[in-house]
């Protein structure tokens, strides 16, 4: 993480960081644009998940006079189509990839680089998002043509949504990185990662809109980080949240990013002490 290179003056450091981000992001855009077919395979596989949920809930809505808990088929369509964008945005350098990074000996090289290791992943995946969103647009148009979403966002909601999908990206990045530290202690983290994913699935609004969950689950979800990576960004666009809830949501994302970063820093410091490079 740290090197013995001469430190830059404060002013220069910020400028070089901005420079680093824009270069790294452009690199990943160029790199990922070469793999359009691979990216599409990945996306089509991913789109299957919300389409299944959408079909199941629309079927139930139709069986019960058009709505489940007051949510109509068109609103489900809006929820799950926006879901596909949010899901694309919160694909980050996941915990299981830390195992790959350690096993393949890449970490040893990464440690020699001067910036905090998070910057490399954050910048690379952030650049990739621009490719992903571009490739996502035709999918969104296709899904909208088939499922007729009921979506009428206000200007404020659109602005909050654009900020919230990046908030979701940061919250999820921090927590996945923290979880990834587990790989320094065990090579069999898979079950723990699965457990985390399952919890996220249920408490984030990824499986179903949280409004369909029992009351106590909804309350619980408010106090955990998961909801702010899925449910909140989606609902900021599709539900009529009050201005207060919208701003509170963005505040919660900032708070969870900070908490996640602090957790990561502690875990990273403990983890790096245990690390001995492959071949050392």
């Amino acid at each position, binding site marked *: 993480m740290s090197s013995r290179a001469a430190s830059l003056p404060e002013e220069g450091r910020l400028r070089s960081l901005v420079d680093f981000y824009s270069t790294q992001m452009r690199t990943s855009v160029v790199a990922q644009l070469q*793999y359009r*077919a*691979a*990216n599409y*395979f*990945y996306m*089509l*596989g*991913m*789109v*299957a*998940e919300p*389409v*299944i949920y959408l*079909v*199941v809930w629309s*079927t*139930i809505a139709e*069986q*019960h006079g058009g709505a*489940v*808990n007051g949510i109509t088929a068109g609103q489900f369509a809006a929820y799950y189509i926006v879901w596909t964008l949010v899901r694309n945005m919160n694909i980050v350098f996941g915990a299981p990839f830390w195992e790959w990074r350690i096993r393949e000996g890449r970490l040893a090289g990464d440690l020699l680089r001067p910036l905090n290791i998070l910057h490399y992943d954050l910048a690379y995946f952030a650049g990739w998002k621009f490719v992903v969103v571009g490739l996502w647009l035709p999918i969104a148009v296709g899904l909208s043509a*088939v499922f007729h979403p009921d979506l009428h966002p206000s200007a404020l909601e659109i602005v909050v949504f654009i900020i919230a999908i990046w908030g979701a990206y940061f919250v999820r990045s921090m927590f996945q990185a923290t979880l990834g530290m587990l790989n320094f202690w065990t090579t*069999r983290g*898979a*079950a723990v990662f*699965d*457990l985390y994913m*399952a919890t996220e*699935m*249920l408490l984030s609004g990824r*499986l*179903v809109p949280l409004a*369909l*969950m029992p009351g106590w689950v909804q309350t619980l979800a408010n106090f955990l980080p998961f909801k702010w990576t899925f449910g909140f960004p989606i609902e900021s666009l599709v539900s009529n949240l009050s201005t207060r809830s919208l701003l509170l949501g963005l505040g919660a994302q900032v708070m969870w990013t900070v908490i996640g970063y602090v957790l990561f820093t502690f875990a990273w410091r403990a983890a790096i002490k245990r690390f001995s490079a492959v071949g050392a």
Partner: protein
Amino acid sequence: MNTLRVGWLYFKVGVLNELQYRVNFFVQLLQSLIQVGTGLVMLSLVYSHTTELNGWKESELLSLLGVQILLGGFIHTFIQPNMELLMQDVQQGTLDYALTKPEDAQILVSVRQVRIWQVVEVISGLVLLIVGLNGVKSSIGAVDALAFAFALGIGGVLVYCFWLILTIGAFWVVRMEHVLELFEGIYQTGRWPVGVYPGWLRYSVTFLVPVAFAVTVPAQALTSRLHWPTLVLSVGFGVVLFAFTRWFWRFGLRHYSGASA
């Protein structure tokens, strides 16, 4: 006969290899429990808002979920590891080692690996299936059970063919690892009766991607919904797809130039 002998030999070596990593059994057990748990939560959520989905009651859908997880376990044990290895071999140029062996190459690439701990998934699917069937009113006769086993076997063949066709794509498009996500995503459609999907999707997951034949048809056999023509159609489709896969494999091989050529 020789095919069976080669398959059995690779199977034995594969099992011995896997038995070295016993802790993986417990990891797999935990993963299966999580998978089943999430499936059950989704089912109970759906049925807390309705009593039947497209004519399927909760216990019937539980059986369907059981079949889907069971077949998924079979795929993860026998089919997927081989297909992943094949893709990796094409990427790294090591497929030549398999091609130069005297045995038929399609057989070799289909039996080289086995992930035996994934059998836990087969068992957990079976448990769900039995629990689900206990809740289904009508009793299951010997004929139903036979039809189920037969349909499931055909389902296995169909999924194998589909996976191999996808993987053969690696001869043209080298970077194929995301196909795994594509398959896993599409396979999830099997958790729900194919009848709930709108027409275009229903036909896609029946003929384009044979998930409906592989999962829904066996489950229909157990819940007394199976019409004999469906089973005959499924057999016919299996034969045609298998022949096509064989042809496509040879066609793909002709386009494969190897790593050192």
